[in-house]
């Protein structure tokens, strides 16, 4: 049994750093095993049995124990479908099948539209076992009345055909839940029952007072756009099948089609009304509206506050700006005035110094001994003028000071002028030879 199989996959390389004693490292254990029954057939099983029996004998006790643990593959008979049978129902005539409650006949009225085909099949089987005419005959009923058995057959046939089951479910009033009384407890099942007709599944739940706005909105949107498969063929008048009266057949068919359409429209309107009613009563909607309103108020308030804040800020900014401007202007004005004053003072000082300059040469009598000739005066004044023209205010002041100190000392005055002229020549402001007297 352990034939070698060659598998065409690649084993991973040993990661570096992996080590273990004798190159083996246990890291886990197997998860549990299921006890199952092996089928005692085939050569391989017999080999297995031989191996297993080799060293064992067993008692009845072991046998029971072993059997109990086996996982069941055969399901037990169904205990779930057990409803009392209404004696009125047992007396039903099969020909009135349209008015019978097919679910009740099969004992499935607890499940109704929720019953699965599997459940229906099992329920049918159970009912057949009980109500088969042969069983009745065995228990002494000699009346040959198998009408309830026929009811069972009709119910099963109908419920196992998806199209016909839908038709019946469409008009299954027993499955409807009315909407009276406590709000969520009542509307929830009501909409759940209505939801069975929805083409779209799953249908949103009605929810409770804690449902979120999205859920509730989702719910009402769903119901206002409800797409229903509900049909009303089941309530049709029987169409004569004999082929004799074609006109009558057509007439009936037409009537049926009209009736179906009318019922469908009525159903749509009814559902619409139902949703409207639910919506009108729904406290959650009011709550959400209030919340929304409260929210809106808060928002508006915040908005206003924000606007006020912005406005204030703007004003403050503006005031600050104005103030800064004014300050700057004043400062500029003061500066200007100060400049003017300085300039005037400088001018005055210069004038005064110039007077000192001119005065000083005059004091020393234009460096002449005795009365100075006009040409002598002229040449001295020319040079003084020249120096004064080339000299700036500060130098003028310095020169004036030197001259004031020199006073009436002609040589000192001349020296002051000569050094000044020399300085100016050195600075390149005067050309050598331009000044004559102070050269």
């Amino acid at each position, binding site marked *: *049994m*352990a*034939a*070698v*199989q*060659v*598998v065409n*996959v*690649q*084993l*991973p*390389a*040993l990661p570096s750093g*992996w080590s*273990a004693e*004798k*190159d*083996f*490292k*246990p*890291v*886990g*254990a*197997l*998860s*549990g*095993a*299921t*006890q*199952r*029954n*092996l*089928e*005692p*057939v*085939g*050569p*391989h*099983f*017999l080999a*297995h*049995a031989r191996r297993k*029996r080799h060293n064992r004998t*067993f008692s009845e006790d*072991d*046998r029971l124990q*072993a059997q109990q643990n*086996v996982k069941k*593959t*055969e399901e037990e008979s169904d205990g779930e479908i057990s409803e009392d049978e209404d004696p009125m129902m047992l007396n039903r005539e099969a020909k009135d099948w349209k008015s019978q409650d097919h679910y009740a006949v099969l004992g499935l009225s607890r499940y109704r539209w929720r019953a699965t085909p599997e459940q229906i*099949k099992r329920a049918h*089987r159970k009912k*057949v*076992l*009980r109500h*088969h005419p*042969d*069983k009745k*005959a*065995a228990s002494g009923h000699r009346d040959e009345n198998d009408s309830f058995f026929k009811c069972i057959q009709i119910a099963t046939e109908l419920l196992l055909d998806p199209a016909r089951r839908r038709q019946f479910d469409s008009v299954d009033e027993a499955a409807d839940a009315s909407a009276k009384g406590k709000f969520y407890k009542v509307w929830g099942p009501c909409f759940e029952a209505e939801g069975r007709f929805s083409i779209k599944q799953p249908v949103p739940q009605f929810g409770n007072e804690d449902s979120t706005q999205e859920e509730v909105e989702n719910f009402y949107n769903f119901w206002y756009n409800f797409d229903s498969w509900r049909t009303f063929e089941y309530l049709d008048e029987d169409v004569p099948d004999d082929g004799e009266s074609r006109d009558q057949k057509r007439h009936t068919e037409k009537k049926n089609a009209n009736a179906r359409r009318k019922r469908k429209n009525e159903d749509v309107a009814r559902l619409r009304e139902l949703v409207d009613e639910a919506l009108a009563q729904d406290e959650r909607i009011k709550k959400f509206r209030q919340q929304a309103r409260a929210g809106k108020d808060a928002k508006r308030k915040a908005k206003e506050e924000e606007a006020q804040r912005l406005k204030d800020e703007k004003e403050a900014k503006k005031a600050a700006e104005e103030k800064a401007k004014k300050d700057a202007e004043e400062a500029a004005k003061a500066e200007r005035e100060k400049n003017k004053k300085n300039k005037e003072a400088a001018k005055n000082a210069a004038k005064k110094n110039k007077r000192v300059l001119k005065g000083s040469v005059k004091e020393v009598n234009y460096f002449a001994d005795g009365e100075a000739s006009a040409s002598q005066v002229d040449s001295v004044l020319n040079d003084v003028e020249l120096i004064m023209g080339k000299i700036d205010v500060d130098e003028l002041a310095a020169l004036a000071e030197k001259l004031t100190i020199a006073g009436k000392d002609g040589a000192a005055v001349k020296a002051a002028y000569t050094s000044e002229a020399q300085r100016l020549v050195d600075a390149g402001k005067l050309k050598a030879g331009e000044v004559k007297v102070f050269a």
Partner: protein
Amino acid sequence: MGDANGVAAEAERFAIGISFGNTSSSIARISPEGKAEVIANEEGDRQIPSILSYIDGEEYHGTQAKAQLIRNSSNTVAYFRDYLGKEFKSIDPTPAHASAHPQQSESTVAFTIRDTASEKPNTVTVSEITTRHLRRLKQSASDFLGKQVNAAVITVPTDFTDAQREALVAAAKEAGIDVLQLIHEPVAAVMAYDARPEATVTDKLVVVADLGGTRSDVAVVACRGGMYTILATAHDYELGGASLDQIIIDHFAKEFVKKHKTDPREDARGLAKLKLEGEGTRKALSLSANAQLSIESLAAGIDYGSTINRTRFELLSSKVFAQFTGLIEQVVKKAELDVLDIDEVIFSGGASHTPKIAQLAQNIFPETTTILAPSTNLSAINPSELAARGAAFQASLVQEFDHEDVEQSIHPMVTVTPHLTKAIGVEFTSGSETSFQPLIASETALPARRIAQYSVPKEGGDVLVRVCEGSRDIKVTKPEPKPKQEKPADDEDSDFSDDEDEDEEIREIVWKTEKPVAELAVKGVKAGGKVEVMVHVNPDLGLQIAVREVGGQTAVRGAINGSA
């Protein structure tokens, strides 16, 4: 056969396989060349209707008895297998509508029939009927083989209770058949395939769809190293060949009503005629595209003849076909599996000859699944013979055993075995990813041992063997919309079940590591070498693992102690 012969036969056991069905039975044996062959009775039938009929004290069996359903229905017993060993209150008398009705008789079921020459009817219990039926089967086999048959392996449905088994064994004993073992029908079917000389032992999951005359049973069977475990079963007691016959009957009856204004179904005899011929027509439709039905004096003395083609029949039967496929899908779901897990679908039972059912099953399962039915697989065995062949094979195996030996072997202490819940395998690399390769599949009975060889990286060197438990996921990918590609198989039968507008999702099985169990290193493997991994799992979930380079001398071994 003389008395002396009888004594000799007592000493020498000669066993056959019997498939005892509600509708029909088969007998088979293993020929001296080792091939299973189904034995024909004296009328040449290999599927012998499980029907007995009595006229003036004379017993008719099989096809002859079936013909009596028309004129002698109250003295004809049919569909009695499922009544055996049951109380009256728990039986369904519906199938026996057109034959002798079952009745309560003390704690068991009985039929009131005139089985002797006298006018007075007798009450015959279902056990007695079974005995008579088995006796006839035994006689047919003995006549064919020229040797007295005195033992058998008989197939039963998986839901047969202990009371039913006991009743069957007792009834067989009355008929002079020593029941060596009762085996389950689906397992017999799997074994019929596995017993073929060309078959190899593989691990596989098989769905056995046994579509009988009056009921259908579907089972998921895990085959692990030649041993079989049933994982789930589903039954439909009202679905079978008869449901398809009903469609034929209704079709022709409507046609008849249109022409002659009387409904042949309202007359018991007319209905019986329709049933008998309709069944023949339905069987003919499985083989050819057209089939005829002609009945003399169907109703009101009118002879009736008509034909039906296969397409029409398939159209009419689409709902019933959907029930068959629904049952198959249901059992796969019940076993908590996916259709992708199923390796084989074996169709067994008479209704499996219907080509459309196998074709529909083909659409349910992926292309990798083998559908073993006559219409989809040329090497398929006749579905009606599977159970009998499997039983014959088992009979040949246990023929030499003592009774006690067999009983001990089928004792629950032996059969109840722990089964792995998760697959065990190793991790491997593909590119840069590591994934999981199962070595021992889940639902393998313990102890189990598997050996496999794996490649190593091209350059050789040290490799890591990581033994893990793995689980499989179904990966669903939606293909981007692209020009429609029809499978060729769909083209031929797209008259229903075509959903062309929908993009089919691609579903595939993806394995992933669930839990590492052990790590082993093989050092210095040659370039291009291979590594052999042996994993042995004990019933207590202990593990022994041995890894060695193929051709190498030393092996790395390790053991993990079991928990239970």
